[in-house]
């Protein structure tokens, strides 16, 4: 069983297989399942992600009224304008937003690795898909590759905002997505690791400060930026840019930053955007009271 990114890349390169294949084989061994069972379960997860994006692009609203409808705005903008950041990037952003808007509206999503960060992986996948024209099998592999990198982060650091801040959630999700984009675009396992490192480096220190404690503000837009980061870092890695700090050390740094992060910045609604005057006002509107402690 691989314990870190270095071992994961080594396994893939020594066997001359993709990261996704390493993950599939490990899952078969650990769970004593056939390839069909493992791949079949992931296909179901892919279907859930596709459906969530569809629902979000039709427009949804959360019960609190804090989020919803932005995915539609972005898609409409793209129909009438050429986005400055490019069509693919804004498409990924809209699909990441769509997923998290559905999540906030208590719709059905697939956690990747968490619900609050569920937009980055499918958002990028269903945008990159339009340019790379992958088979359904390659799309499923995208999820296994994302999962392999997330697996390392979860076991060596954290994927929970309450434990490690947003860097551990959206940071991890964005890193996972960038590694998977590289593989789908034909990059090497080592380039996937570089993309993950570059992405995570740029999300270090990001706090988890949800307004009213809800997975809405700023979570939905953080997924938009996670998706953008992932695509940018993937392109950099495919261009041959490398991270001076190895991926495993970046993950460890993220873990240590999370450990030293005050509790106010770890999903308690006590700091950051949650503690702004407007944040408190919205909170009072949602609950009828403020969560602020005297």
């Amino acid at each position: 069983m691989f314990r870190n990114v270095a071992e994961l890349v080594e396994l893939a390169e020594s066997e001359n297989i993709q990261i996704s294949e390493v993950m599939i084989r490990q899952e078969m061994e650990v769970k004593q399942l056939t390839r069909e069972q493992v791949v079949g379960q992931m296909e179901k997860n892919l279907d859930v992600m596709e459906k969530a994006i569809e629902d979000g692009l039709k427009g949804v609203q959360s019960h609190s009224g804090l989020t919803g409808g932005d995915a539609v705005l972005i898609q409409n903008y793209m129909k009438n304008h050429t986005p400055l950041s490019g069509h693919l990037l804004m498409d990924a952003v809209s699909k990441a937003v769509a997923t998290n808007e559905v999540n906030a509206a208590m719709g059905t999503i697939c956690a990747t690795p968490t619900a609050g960060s569920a937009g980055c992986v499918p958002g990028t996948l269903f945008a990159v898909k339009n340019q790379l024209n992958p088979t359904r099998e390659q799309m499923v592999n995208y999820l296994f590759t994302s999962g392999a990198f997330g697996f390392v982060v979860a076991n060596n650091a954290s994927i929970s905002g309450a434990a490690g801040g947003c860097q551990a959630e959206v940071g991890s999700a964005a890193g996972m997505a960038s590694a998977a984009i590289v593989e789908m675009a034909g990059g090497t396992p080592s380039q996937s690791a570089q993309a993950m490192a570059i992405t995570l480096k740029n999300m270090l220190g990001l706090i988890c400060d949800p307004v009213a404690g809800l997975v809405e503000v700023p979570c939905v837009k953080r997924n938009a930026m996670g998706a953008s980061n992932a695509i940018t870092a993937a392109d950099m890695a495919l261009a041959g840019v490398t991270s001076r700090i190895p991926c495993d050390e970046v993950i460890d740094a993220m873990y240590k930053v999370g450990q030293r992060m005050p509790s106010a910045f770890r999903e308690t609604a006590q700091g950051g955007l949650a503690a702004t005057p407007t944040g408190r006002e919205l909170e009072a509107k949602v609950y009828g009271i403020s969560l602020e402690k005297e």
Partner: protein
Amino acid sequence: MVKEMKYRSVFDIIGPVMIGPSSSHTAGAARIGRAARHLFGREPKYAHVHLYGSFAKTYKGHGTDVAIIGGLLDYETDDTRISGALKTARANGMKVRFHEEDAVTDHPNTARLKIGDDDGELELVGISIGGGKAEITELNGFELNLSGEHPAILLIHNDRFGAIASSTTILAKHEINIGRMEVSRKAQGEQALMVIEVDQNIEDSVLNELERADHIIQVAKISD
């Protein structure tokens, strides 16, 4: 230093499929409730839910309350009935109370559940560690470490020699492989708890055989 591998499956990372909005505060909470339900073995008539840390501060916005009760009703994380769980529980005659605790716990997302009916009571502490994964850290005063994702057998037994050997011999006879095993006790010579995580679901006949083994007092199982 090598850390413990808390996550063993890719589907801990890409998954679960769930009702939003939070994997830790909704899906993980539902799994804690469902583990309690399975250990209790039936739908309880009352539930006292004590919430700590981030759970205590944000449970209403995340639907942690409906998720835990949904779990007690045996709902999975992707069951759309979760949002109506409180109403359903009340309609079923379950008395539910939530307590927001100020005490600081080791893990920020901790819940203590006291559930029961006229025939028995169960007290359990669960933590939601991220990505929808939950662990049971305490059961009726015994410390333990249970993911609730593998089938597991829980045996309350007398703290005597031979209790462990007689149980594992029975499992070996039925060709059941043990994935992980843990024994804890409150004090020497008193009652102890044995937790055995296995690879496949256990048939009732095996449980009955275990219950008849030396020094074994009570047997329960959690299915996958």
